[in-house]
Every structure is written in C-alpha cells, then in structure tokens.
C-alpha cells in the first residue's frame, strides 16, 4: 500500500475544505507589500558611478571624506586670504583706551590721514590738523614725501594689518616732528600761526587784533600761496575751506575761543595763540603745530616717584600738557638750568615721543628726535597742570 494513500483521510480532507477559514484571504496591504517587494527584488539596479567603482571607499558614507575635504578647502582659503599679511596680535590697552577717549576710528591714527592730512583727512579732525607744514623747504620736502605717499597708501593699507599701519603712522609723525624741529628755529608769528592751513584752527584762533573777516582769509590765502610744493589736489581740498569759510562760521564753530581772546590780558606774541585757547581746553588744541600724537603719559618726580597713565586715565591732564608743548614749540629760549620739578614723558604705542620738564615756572620740551625748546608759559596753564598732577600723583 502506498504511504500517500494509506495515510490520507478523505473525511478529514473534506472537513478541511469545508472549514470556515477556507475562503480567508490575506489583507490587501500584505498582498501589496509582497508584490512590491517582489518587483523591487528584480528591478534593474542603478549603474554604479565610475568614481565609486574606481574608489569604493569614497562611496561609504561612514567615512568623513566630505568633512576632510571641507577642512582642507577652508584652510587653503584662509591661507590665501592672509598671504603676505601679518597675523594680528592682541591690541594694546592704550589703543582701546584712546579709542574710548573719544577718538572715533575715522579720526584715529590711520596712515592715510596722519601722513597726508591736507589731502585726505577731514579738516576738523585733530590728527589731520596736527602735522602743520613746516616753513623750511627741506622739512616740507620731507613732509611732502610722506604726504606724497599718502594717495597710494589706501590701496596698500587696506591689505595691511593694523599693527603695520600703526607703525607707519608713528614713523610719519616722527618724521614730521623731526623735520619741524630741525627746520623751524624761529616760531612763526602769531598771526601766521593762526592762519596755518588746518582750516578750523585758523578760524578758531584768529589774532585778537586782526579784523575778523579779513584776518583769516587773506592769511590762509597767503599761506596757501606760500606753499608751492603742495599738490593741487591738496590745495583744492584744504585751502578753499580755509579761505572760503566765513567768519560767522568760524565764530560759530568756536565761540568761546573768540570771546576768550577778546577778553584776555595782553600776552606775548608767542603766547597769543596759546592764550586764545580757552582755559578748559578743547580738543582743538591738538591742532597746534609740534604736538606729537600720544596715547600714554608717564609722570616722573625728582624723588623717583613715577606713574604711567593712558590718555584716558590722564583725564584733564592732556589739555595743559599739550598747551605747554605748543607754547614751548613756538619759543626758542634756552633750556632752563633749574632742576626739573616734574617730568612729563609722552608715549605713543609704548615709544616715548617727547619729554616735557617743568622747573620753576619754565618748561622745556624735548621731542624724541631732539630740538629742545624752552619757554615761560602762562602761570594759569602751569597751575592747571599741577592741579591735575596732584590728583594723579601716587600717595
């Protein structure tokens, strides 16, 4: 007997056929999933890219090749951007302090404005007005050479780092100071000083005796005419402002100065311009010729005490100091033989730019490049200086 036939029960087979679940069907979702899976299994596979077949590791998403390439690309970009440029270091505290002192970045010591004030800088900013042209031809030639580089400076200075520009500015300031000290043995008359090209200064400090309207314009005009080495562009930017500035505008810009000059007692001619400045000195005093740019000051006493201050910390010490320096720069007196009661050393970026010594009512100003000047300034200014120094002196 065959096993197949022997073990098959027809009654049970019939019962299976008639069972209630005989008509059961899978759910449509299961049917659809099965058919889709079957179709996907034999679907043509997308061709493998040639680069993946050549380098199978590139197709593995677990490998961070993209991140590696992005890092290399970014490093290359940064390297190219900083090529031939100095890496910027930490900015000294003095720079930030000076900036917070009220000198805006536009007025700050950028090389273009400092080296070529008449050509680029706005006339009202102190750095632009500070380096007044020296009368001597050699000094003007040096200053002109510094100023002549200025128009080309923006193209290169944009790519230079901040420390490089600061160094250039310092060098330009020193060169101008040296040229001015060496080639200006006699201070110009007060009337001419008042009309020195920085136009705001010319309008702000006119001589008390000069007619208001005619004093500024002709003087400025003659000054402009007396500086033939100036470029036409520089003249067109500086002279018209000084010549064409109405006296009303000048008086409006510094009304206190005019009133102070009118009411001030008679002074020596060399101190006329200094006396024209008001007692609470304004920033316009920075426009005096011979004033170096400085951002820190060191006060030294004969007994060895000394204190270092930033310009911001110096507070109201700056106006009398600059006023005294300006007075000394316009004087040609011999150095005072008396021992110094106070020594004020001005610093710019950590480098001494000059020393002001006060001894028994006389002052001696020694710029960094030499050319010592002495003068007997106004007692009120000296008193103002000592008052401030006393507040800042170490106890």
């Amino acid at each position, binding site marked *: 007997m065959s096993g197949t036939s022997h073990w098959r029960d027809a009654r049970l087979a019939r019962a299976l*056929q008639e069972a209630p679940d005989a008509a059961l069907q899978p759910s449509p979702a299961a049917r659809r999933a099965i058919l889709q*899976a079957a179709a996907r299994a034999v679907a043509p596979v997308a061709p493998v890219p040639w680069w993946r077949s050549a380098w199978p590791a590139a197709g593995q998403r677990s490998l961070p090749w993209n991140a590696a390439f992005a890092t290399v690309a970014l490093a290359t970009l940064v390297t190219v951007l900083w090529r031939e440029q100095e890496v910027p270091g930490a900015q000294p505290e003095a720079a930030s302090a000076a900036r917070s002192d009220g000198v805006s970045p536009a007025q700050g010591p950028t090389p273009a404005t400092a080296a070529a004030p008449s050509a680029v800088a706005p006339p009202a900013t102190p750095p632009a007005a500070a380096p007044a042209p020296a009368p001597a031809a050699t000094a003007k030639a040096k200053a002109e050479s510094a100023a002549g580089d200025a128009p080309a400076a923006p193209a290169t200075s944009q790519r230079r780092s901040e420390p490089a520009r600061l160094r250039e500015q310092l060098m330009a300031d020193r060169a101008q100071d040296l040229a001015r000290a060496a080639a200006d043995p006699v201070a110009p008359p007060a009337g001419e000083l008042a009309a020195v090209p920085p136009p705001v200064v010319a309008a702000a400090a006119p001589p008390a005796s000069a007619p208001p309207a005619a004093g500024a314009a002709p003087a400025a005009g003659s000054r402009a005419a007396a500086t033939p080495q100036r470029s036409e562009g520089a003249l067109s930017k500086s002279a018209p402002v000084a010549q064409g500035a109405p006296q009303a505008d000048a008086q409006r810009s510094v009304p206190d100065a005019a009133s102070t000059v009118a009411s001030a007692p008679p002074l020596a001619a060399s101190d006329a311009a200094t006396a024209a400045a008001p007692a609470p000195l304004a920033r316009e005093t920075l426009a005096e010729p011979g004033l170096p740019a400085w951002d820190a000051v060191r006060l030294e006493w004969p007994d060895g005490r000394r204190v270092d201050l930033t310009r911001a910390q110096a507070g109201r010490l700056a106006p009398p100091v600059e006023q005294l320096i300006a007075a000394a720069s316009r004087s040609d007196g011999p150095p005072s033989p008396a021992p110094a009661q106070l020594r004020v050393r001005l610093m710019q970026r950590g480098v001494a730019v000059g020393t002001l010594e006060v001894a028994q009512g006389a002052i001696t100003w020694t710029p960094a490049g030499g050319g010592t000047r002495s003068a007997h300034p106004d007692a009120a200014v000296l008193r103002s200086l000592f008052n401030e120094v006393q507040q800042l002196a170490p106890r």
Partner: protein
Amino acid sequence: MPPDEQLMLAYAGGDVSAFELLYARHEGALYRFVRRLLGAPLAAQVDEVFQDTWLRIVAARASFTPQGAAWRTWAFTIAHNAAMDRLRTSGREITLGGGEDDGDDPLEWLAAQLDQRHPSSEDVAFWRAAGRQLLHCLDELPHAQRAAFLLHHENGASVEDMALRLGLGYETAKSRLRYALQKLRGCMKKYLEVMEPVA
C-alpha cells in the same frame, strides 16, 4: 497555463508578471496553510508570517531548481518553516515523545461517494460544522503533528516528500502523521460516527 516551476524561473529572470501569476495561483492555499498551522491563538500574526513566507520565496528565487521538488511543495515547506519559526519564538511549541502506534485505516471510499453526491444544504451545514470542529481539533494538536497532517492533506505531499523536505526520517514523518490522524479522529468522533451510517 504555465507550470509553477516555469513561472518561478521566469521571475528569477526578472519577469515580475510571472511572479504575480504565481502569487495569484497559490495565495489562498498558502494563506490557509499558514493560518491553520499557526492556529487560532496566533491568528493575528497570520498576515505577517504569510508575508514573511513570500519574501523568503522572493529571496530564494535564485536557488530554486525545478529538478528538486515541485514549486508547491517547495513553497509550502518555506511556509512551514516560517510558521514554525514564529511558533518557536512565541514559546508555544510543545515537543511530545511519540510512541509507535497503529493507525486507523483510511476511508478512501468515502471520498468517492461524497464526490458523486450532490451536496444538499444539510450536507453543506454538516461539513461546515465538521470543518469548524476540525480546526478546533487541529489547535489541540502538537505543532509537528499538525504540520505533518496539513502538509499531507493540504499540500498533498507524500510521507517521503514530507520527510525529505522537513529533514526527517521516514519513520518519524510517518509516526507524526499517524499520531495526528489518531487524535483528530478521536476529536472528530462525533462527526465521523454520523458519516459512517450514512455511508
């Protein structure tokens, strides 16, 4: 109508329509087989096991050889393995030590008689009730015996084929089938006794 083996070979060659035809042809039988093999307690998982069965068939398309066995036997073996895997993971598999016992004689004559009769409504109701009772009796069987009975009665596999496909010895396969028949006949005694006087 192309045979199942040819359709499977066509599908292995990329013909999706051949698979669709094959699926339509055996969908119901495989589904019922899985359903009865899992039993009522695992009825909720029938769809999942049924889908798993077909996915296994799809995955094994390249290994199918028509020289080995009929496609239907091959497919039912895959379904059996899928259902057993599910029963094993569900912890419901019970292994029984089987002793040799004599089985009952087959009643092949009944099939011929039933085929010749026109089924009345009473007969339809009777067989429907018998089928329901048989499903209940199948749930009472151990899985191995249940599988042996279903493979033999639903798929039509011989004991030799069943032993070969399940990797069993012939005597083991025969023993499982004999025990299954013995228990089912005992469970279905009420219906079988009614049938005998009629026959």
